């Protein structure tokens, strides 16, 4: 039986192409399950999963919890917007306290890049990174690629532009790694202040003109501007931002071809995309959300099957 090459999902950069295909094939199966009248399988009845969210999250947390419950895992939740360090307890101590209650797997969101990698070196449970600072958000990238595959048949050879705040975005980084692994071409587009200076060395194209970027691509993944991660203003106003980097219906209609619009959410309507774009037939934003549950079921199922060995 095929299995993942890793014991944790810490980032896309730690996966290989076979891992991604295996996750997609497993997700295909679970997508069928969650569309049944009884949306649940008993696969993980003997597994306990802790969702540790050291940073605010609504949709990712719900998506993981739903995925876990549909696999019949026991689930406990821990949320703290404050980092454990500020409370005087180290991350390792916090997690080890929870693990001593016989938890098998940890799903963790954390504000610091590398928190999952760090934890994996010091604790015994299997770890799923649900977003670590501006590092990676692997399940988001997997569900994004899965949604492109579903819409366009294949990811290989497709041109994908990621638009917006690349500098503070774990979604951008994971998407770049995932798309490149599957043979897609990647471009980033945004104000220069929000594009890492050396990102071209990852083999991505860099464009600051949105119209040119959209004319080039098959898929545009629109990112939210992460004001909460900014220590200073990287652009003068959201009005001016949306003038340059907001996708409107008029702009979409002016293109030579029909491109697919994605967004990891939450959307700032009227900033990065207008409502009519978000709700248009070119948008697959809600498909992404549904696929998120199937992808997370697949990841958890595959990692759990390695624990059981």
């Amino acid at each position, binding site marked *: 039986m095929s299995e993942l090459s890793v014991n944790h999902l810490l980032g896309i950069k730690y996966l290989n192409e076979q891992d991604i295909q295996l996750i997609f094939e497993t997700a295909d199966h679970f997508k069928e399950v969650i569309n049944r009248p009884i949306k649940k399988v008993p696969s993980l009845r003997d597994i306990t999963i802790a969702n540790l969210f050291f940073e605010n999250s609504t949709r990712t947390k719900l998506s993981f919890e739903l995925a876990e419950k549909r696999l019949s895992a026991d689930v406990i939740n821990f949320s703290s917007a404050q*980092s454990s*360090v500020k409370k005087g307890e*180290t991350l390792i101590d916090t997690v080890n306290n929870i693990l001593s209650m016989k938890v098998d797997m940890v799903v963790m969101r954390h504000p610091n890049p*590398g928190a999952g990698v760090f934890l994996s070196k010091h604790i015994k449970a299997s770890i799923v990174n649900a977003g*670590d600072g501006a590092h990676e958000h692997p399940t988001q990238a997997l569900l994004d690629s899965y949604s492109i595959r579903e819409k366009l048949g294949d990811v290989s050879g497709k041109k994908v532009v990621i638009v917006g705040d690349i500098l503070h975005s774990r979604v951008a980084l994971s998407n770049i790694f995932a798309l490149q692994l599957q043979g897609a071409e990647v471009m980033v587009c945004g104000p220069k202040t929000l594009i890492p200076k*050396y990102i071209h060395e990852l083999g991505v194209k860099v464009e600051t003109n949105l119209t040119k970027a959209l004319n080039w691509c098959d898929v545009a993944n629109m990112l939210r501007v992460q004001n909460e991660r900014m220590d200073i203003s990287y652009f003068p106003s959201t009005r001016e931002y949306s003038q340059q980097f907001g996708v409107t219906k008029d702009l979409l209609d002016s293109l030579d071809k029909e491109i697919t619009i994605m967004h990891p959410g939450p959307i700032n309507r009227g900033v990065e995309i207008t409502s009519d774009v978000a709700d248009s037939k070119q948008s697959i934003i809600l498909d992404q959300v549904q696929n998120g549950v199937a992808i997370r079921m697949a990841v958890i199922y595959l990692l759990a099957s390695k624990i059981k060995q």
Partner: protein
Amino acid sequence: MNILIKSATIIDPNSDYNNTTQDILIENGVITKIESNLSNPNNYEEITLENLHISEGWFDSSVCFGEPGFEDRETIENGLKTAAYSGFTAVAMNANTNPVIDSNSDIIFTKSKASNHAVNLLPIGALTVGSKTVDLAELYDMHNAGAVAFYDYQKPISNPNLLKIALQYASNFDGLVCSFPQENKISGNGVMHEHITSTRLGLKGNPALAEELQVARDLFLLEYTGGKLHIPTISTPKSVALIREAKKKKLDVSCSVAIHNLALTDATLTEFNTHFKVLPPLRTKEDAEALIEAVNDGTIDMVTSDHNPIDVEHKKVEFDHAAYGTIGLESSFGALQSLFSTEKAVEILTKGKSRFGVAPVSIKVGNKANLSLFNPSTSYTFTKNNIVSKSKNAIFEDANLKGKVYGIVANNKIVLNS
């Protein structure tokens, strides 16, 4: 102390015995005879060690020992023992203690803690009160008590007028002012070098620009004020170029580089290992190569271990939260010898002395014995077992190093590494 050192190869370009193997007789701390095949007249203690080499005692221009205030990280006593075991006969200790060493009495306390030790402890006083980079500390008073330089360890002086005044004021008594090369507004929250690795890891980058802007500014100020400026731990080729130009203009500027910035690059950080979190950050291979070249051509005046013991509680945490710094005394010689010849390594380890007021003592009859003892040809993997420091945050852990240190003879004492 009377000893006879047998069969030691002397590495000292200022000695007539350079590159020869001799026996050395030391009586009451003074070299009294250097000859091949000396007999042991009065049953003195004899030192016979495998492939023994000796040189003038080594000096490190930047160490931190944590005392007072951070004794859990390191104490002066154990710090000096570490220095001795690592071949150093003099170390300049930074003022990053608690309280900060910023007064005459603090300097006296520090010196008293180190008296009667084989290693000379040279205290660096803080440049500003509490190292808060706001008001000048009593530099003259500290100078009189024995402070060899003035430095707010790794705290940039953001206010250019403050550095201007410090340089002007300290020039009255030939004081050495140190300025950490970092423009804080540009470095921002950066925790590693801004380049491809920081991009891949999603860690905030601290660009080379932050250092270079500050170096350029400081040199402009120095040109205006006169005085003596030392720029500790530079890490980029442009900083080197700026300092090279300043030296051509005869500005009285010196600089150092940390050994790890020569030997390691930001590529080591891929696993978020906090042992590699240092300031200035590890930069690229090209940067390290340019720095080595600048050490070779003399633009960089001295190489330091920038020894900074940090307890495990401040290192075994998320990368963003981890403290900057590494211990380095123990690995200094082995790391340097991995990059340079033995002769060059010894030159590097003795070169910065005069800038910090340490008189060079070459290996000659009649001179005080101030010696480092080592075997340059042993290759080994540096592990926790090689660490003498209380804290174990070693950037060179698991690195392959070349050359082992036996210890020192200095201040009429002998300290040998078991």
